[in-house]
């Protein structure tokens, strides 16, 4: 039976050494390139005809645009509009990565915490920089909630700071754990199909079919959750008071 964790192995495809840095193209990197190309093709080719009455493809492109636009409108407000390009790219990148990862023999790079943590850290640092740029040192007053007795401050301020610092960790763990757990589970059940033979093999096969559907839900949901949390953090950065 194949090792269910072998699918997460990073393999070097094109070795590239830049001085001390190992910048080789791995299967993870290759699928990032494929994801970016797929998103670009989906949006650019989808909007090629620009008809007033959209076809199926243009409808999907417009639907994803409107989905993110309304998410930003609901969670951030009109001031979040200038961050639309970033949030739209983030959502499409994660969504396509998760969905392309469901194709057999492909690689899911969102199942690696190095990738998800890099994305979450970027969002966290960006949001903090936006908050400090907009509110200056006033930003730090928010680690002390309003109306707290000053006696409680020595306990509450560290807790609030820790709670703030845990944001990128929880964002990255949620995405990576969901993707990795789902793919491992599918592989474990798939490993039982052939050994159980023509009589017993149907049960794990049925489980895998159900899991595949469930994984499509998870792929979308985790992209959604990651993006919605980015919106909420952005909202906090913009409207401190």
């Amino acid at each position, binding site marked *: 039976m194949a090792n269910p964790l072998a699918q997460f192995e990073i393999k070097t495809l094109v070795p590239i050494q830049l001085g001390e840095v190992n910048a080789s193209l791995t299967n993870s990197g290759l699928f990032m390139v494929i994801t970016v190309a797929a998103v670009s093709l989906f949006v650019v080719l989808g909007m090629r005809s620009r008809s*007033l*009455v959209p076809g199926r493809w243009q409808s999907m492109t417009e639907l994803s645009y409107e989905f993110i636009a309304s998410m930003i409108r609901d*969670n951030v407000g009109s001031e979040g509009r200038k961050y639309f390009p970033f949030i739209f790219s983030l959502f499409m990148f994660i969504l396509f990565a998760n969905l392309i990862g469901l194709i057999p023999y492909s690689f899911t790079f969102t199942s690696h915490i190095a990738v998800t943590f890099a994305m979450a850290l970027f969002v966290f640092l960006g949001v903090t920089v936006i908050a400090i740029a907009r509110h200056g040192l006033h930003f730090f007053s*928010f*680690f002390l*909630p*309003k*109306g*707290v007795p000053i006696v409680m401050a020595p*306990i509450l301020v*560290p*807790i*609030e*700071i*820790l*709670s*703030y*610092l*845990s*944001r990128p*960790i*929880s964002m990255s*763990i*949620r995405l990576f*754990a*969901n993707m990795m757990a789902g793919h491992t589970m599918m592989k474990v059940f798939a490993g039982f199909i052939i050994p159980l033979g023509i009589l017993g093999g149907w049960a794990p096969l049925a489980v895998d079919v159900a899991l595949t559907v469930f994984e499509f*839900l998870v792929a979308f*949901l*985790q992209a*959604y*959750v990651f993006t*919605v949390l980015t919106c*909420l*953090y952005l*909202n*906090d950065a913009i*409207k*401190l*008071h």
Partner: protein
Amino acid sequence: MSDDHPKADLEDLDNRLKRVRKDGKSGTTAAADNGKSDAAGFGMAMRAGTEMVSALIVGVAIGLLLDNWLDTGPWFFVVFFFLGAGAGVLNVYRAATSMGSVPGYGPGTETKRPDDTIDK
């Protein structure tokens, strides 16, 4: 789509869209809303679990780093473990009461959770 009567086509489409929207109000959109709230609920459940763990990870990591740096035995680790646990509970509480009230910021969420007990 024929190019002979684009206007008539659009009017026809407009009428059909209006009809579908009127009919669909009760049936399809309600089902879609239902599915959306289910999905959002599932996401929230996953969120609560990771919030607790991640706050603990941050607390323990900071404690161990400070101990390593200042050579103060287990003291910072112990203190930051409990602070991390507190932050985790706070995260879960805030995630559970409303998705809008995110760690670190008291105000701005007052309208969403008027029953906030932190400032009482």
